[in-house]
């Protein structure tokens, strides 16, 4: 039988705050010793009280706005109880009853739309590493701020599941609320999959695959679940409502916990944290700090940058901001930090037309560098200045730089040692500026034409042998030490050899 899959996704996003959700210790535990980013509050000493990090609330507002969500004027924290060594307090502080982020939606690049049910703030758990006879506990990650984004069951294919997750990731990194480093678990996905007979208006029983940490594994897990559940249904059996784990190695999901074994979390309002009451003014002020989102870039540059190139570039917010800067659509430059400098505003899109050639050139260059060089992260952390790029585009447009020379100079712009130089000096140093002065070029052409070794070629050309023009251009280029603009040279030659 044919089945129609229905998929809902829960996504945990770690927020890029400086400190933890409820304490003042460093929130960035990458490259740090286990248990070195832990305060008495995170460690749950007796008598310790949580202190809500206002920055996490602000980032949650931005994340919510990035997903077109309502921000709730009043939200509250609750305690979710369970015993496990990754949870020092014996409960997780989350928002079960009154989340901060309300309904919204995410537009998929393919044109689909996934509604957001809600999203809430909560603290992350610690990390356990298991060995044969013991386990080690690392509490560095305890109470790293998370938002959990809960989608409506609006997804119906593995590919859309993949695209939704990827678009969410883009929204989060463009909004600057998360580092979005999937390898380090900055975003994790739980995928609910159910199948119903095609045409049925009832949903089937769902299985939840937990803790997926890449778009690819989301796609594969959904594909696997669709196959697995189809087989069960085809055999006339029933799908069990359960939690399943995913193995990237085997490409399979395996059952972990059925509904009957589900824990009772005994939710209770968190008495140590007063409700978050946000004024409309505060929400509006914070929402206004939302930077340009992928959809803004698509509408700005969709007709200038080829679709495939743009979609590649849209994985890199820094890059898009740079293009926007070159295009002159940002009123001020962004800081590189995750939590500052989000005050960019769109100016008049019509300005873009004058910058179109520059945008085309730079998007081409960036895309080719990114695709070819496997160095994207490095490159992108330290992009050339907007002026350097503008100058490069201008020199290219004036034909002062050949396309080869343009790329060469472009790559040199990434060299930190070149950072303080202007593009022209760099091009000069490299000796790649083309000679466009027609008077000077004519003199060089005359010199070449006077040389005995070119006489036969001149005669052949006049006799209609077109292809020898290449030889003559080459001679002129040689004479000019490669700086002559070849098309200008050819033009002069043709005129003189008439």
């Amino acid at each position, binding site marked *: 039988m044919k089945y129609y899959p229905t998929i809902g996704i829960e996504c945990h996003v770690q927020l890029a705050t400086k400190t933890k959700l409820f304490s003042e210790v460093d929130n960035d535990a990458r490259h740090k010793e286990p248990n070195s980013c832990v305060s008495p509050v995170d460690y749950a000493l007796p008598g310790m009280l949580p202190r809500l990090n206002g920055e996490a609330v602000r980032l949650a507002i931005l994340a919510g706005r990035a997903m077109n969500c309502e921000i709730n004027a009043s939200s509250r924290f609750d305690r979710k109880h369970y015993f496990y060594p990754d949870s020092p307090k014996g409960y997780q502080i989350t928002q079960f009853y009154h989340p901060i982020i309300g309904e919204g939606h995410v537009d998929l690049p393919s044109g689909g739309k996934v509604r957001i049910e809600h999203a809430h703030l909560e603290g992350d758990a610690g990390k356990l590493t298991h060995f044969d006879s013991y386990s080690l506990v690392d509490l560095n990650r305890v109470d790293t701020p998370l938002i959990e984004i809960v989608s409506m069951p609006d997804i119906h294919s593995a590919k859309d599941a993949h695209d939704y997750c990827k678009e969410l990731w883009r929204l989060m990194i463009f909004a600057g609320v998360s580092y979005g480093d999937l390898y380090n678990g900055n975003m994790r996905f739980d995928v609910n999959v159910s199948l119903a007979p095609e045409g049925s208006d009832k949903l089937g029983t769902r299985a939840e695959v937990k803790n997926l940490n890449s778009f690819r594994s989301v796609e594969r897990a959904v594909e696997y679940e669709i196959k697995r559940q189809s087989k069960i249904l085809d055999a006339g059996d029933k799908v069990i409502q359960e939690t399943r784990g995913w193995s990237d190695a085997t490409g399979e999901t395996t059952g972990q916990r059925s509904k009957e074994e589900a824990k009772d979390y005994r939710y209770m309002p968190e008495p140590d944290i007063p409700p978050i*009451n946000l004024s409309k003014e505060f929400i509006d002020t914070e929402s206004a700090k939302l930077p340009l989102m992928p959809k803004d870039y698509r509408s700005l540059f969709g007709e200038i940058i080829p679709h495939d190139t743009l979609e590649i570039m849209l994985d890199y917010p820094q890059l898009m901001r740079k293009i926007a800067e070159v295009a002159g659509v940002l009123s001020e430059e962004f800081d590189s930090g995750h939590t500052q400098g989000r005050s960019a505003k769109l100016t008049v899109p019509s300005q873009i037309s004058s910058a179109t050639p520059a945008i085309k050139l730079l998007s081409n260059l960036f895309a080719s560098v990114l695709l070819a060089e496997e160095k994207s992260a490095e490159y992108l952390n330290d992009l050339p200045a907007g002026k350097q790029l503008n100058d490069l585009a201008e020199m290219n447009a004036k034909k002062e730089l050949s396309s080869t020379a343009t790329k060469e100079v472009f790559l040199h712009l990434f060299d930190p040692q070149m950072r303080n130089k202007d593009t022209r000096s760099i091009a000069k140093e490299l000796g790649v500026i083309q000679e466009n002065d027609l008077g000077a070029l004519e003199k060089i052409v005359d010199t070449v034409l006077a040389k005995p070794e070119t006489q036969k070629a001149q005669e052949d050309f006049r006799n209609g042998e077109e292809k020898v023009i290449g030889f003559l251009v080459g001679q002129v280029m040689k004479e000019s030490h490669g700086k002559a603009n070849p098309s200008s040279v050819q033009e002069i030659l043709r005129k003189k050899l008439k």
Partner: protein
Amino acid sequence: MKTANKTVTATRLVKDALEKAKHFADYNIFTFLNEEGALKKAAEIDEKIARGEKVGRLAGVPYALKDNFLSPEGDTTASAHILEGCASPVTATTVEKLEAEGAIMIGRANLDAFAHGSSTENSYFGPTLNSHDKTRVAGGSSGGSAVAVALDIVEFATGTDTGGSIRQPASFNGVYGFKPTYGTISRYGVVAMASSLDCIGFFTKTPEDMDLLMSITAGQDPKDMTTLPDYYNENFNGDNDTTEDAACPSGTLRAAQAKSSRPVEHIASSAASPIYKIGIIKDFDNDVVDVSIRNALKEKCELLKSKGYEIVELEMPTLKYALAAYYIIQPAEVASNLSRYDGVRYGFRSENSTDLDGLYENTRSEGFMAENKRRIMIGNFVLSSGFYDAYFLKAAKARTLIINEYNKAFEKCDFILTPVSPNPAFKLGEKVNDPVAMYLEDLMSVSLNLAGVPGLAIPAGETAEGLPIGLQLVGPRRSDKKLIEFSKELI
């Protein structure tokens, strides 16, 4: 408060206190005596005095610290086996404030483990004995603190009051015991019992001392989001909504405060000798209450009348639900707050386990007292899926009604005078095996915690057997200073 000076040194005061503490060792008041630390601090203060330097308002004053306040001096055990041997790297905000004024902790005072109890019999270190009759209980949970002050070992002691744990032992031992408005004093560094009810307060021998301690310790603490701005010393710029929010974890208190038609200003701005109206709750004048306590209340009413104050009778029918609501909300928060004691990171860990579940089960079974376990079970039951609405949510609604009832009452009067507990100090062991009888001891004290209003236990004579009687003076939220001031009229 007797502070140190050139003739009576801090060292003298501390030595005297330590000697008395040892003299009364059989009362089992202290879980730890801070001899070395206290004498060292006393010497430092004496040096300061000798050099003519400025010393604090509590210079050299010895005090007892209820053993659920964190400080690096001595282990913070909360009189619980599961926390035995736990030295704290953290100092409670209240301890910091007291010591900044020169107060010297001479010992940690015994309590019911995790402050669960009304007699200090639930202490892992054994019960503290009543200051007036060694065959009777000290009251609880702050039994050690109350007896330390009553026996004049120290000038004052700290306490915590979740449902009466300061006021009841104060009344059992004939001293002043104050539970302030919720959020007045920071809870940071105090072992939590039930977070939305817990209040930090003190035991003293006079209202003046109480006022001094309050003025030192009240105020907003960035480490405790539920603290109020320092209204006690009127030391804050405006009182904006944000700070008001911070005071009210459930939101209901805030709503109640906003609705209250008789704000503190009414009292504060009254004439120099205001003619207060004092409310008496009719329902509390019945056979459940010991006759000597009822008589003491009548005497005090006559005294007030003779001074020109008006006595008004109040009907507060909702208060009869206070105890039931309290014994749902409180165990729920207790169960939650005790979850962290799992033997994984600190404290007692059972050695009899082979796997993780066993570690939890054995550690908590062996580490908690029976009363702790009773509350954990009740708390988890009322929070469990399917029962939350019927129990916890219902109790939370009852709590809102009780808040409203107090607001209405304070439209008719300025303060309310009631017994603290139905009976004077009972015999050791008398109620140990009857938890409900023990819970009934809290009948008149718990509604204040549910409503977040302040209450001061006041000594009000003795029974025929010579047992202290206590009354409590209750005021609207943030009336704490006026309330302590007014209590002098009852002497």
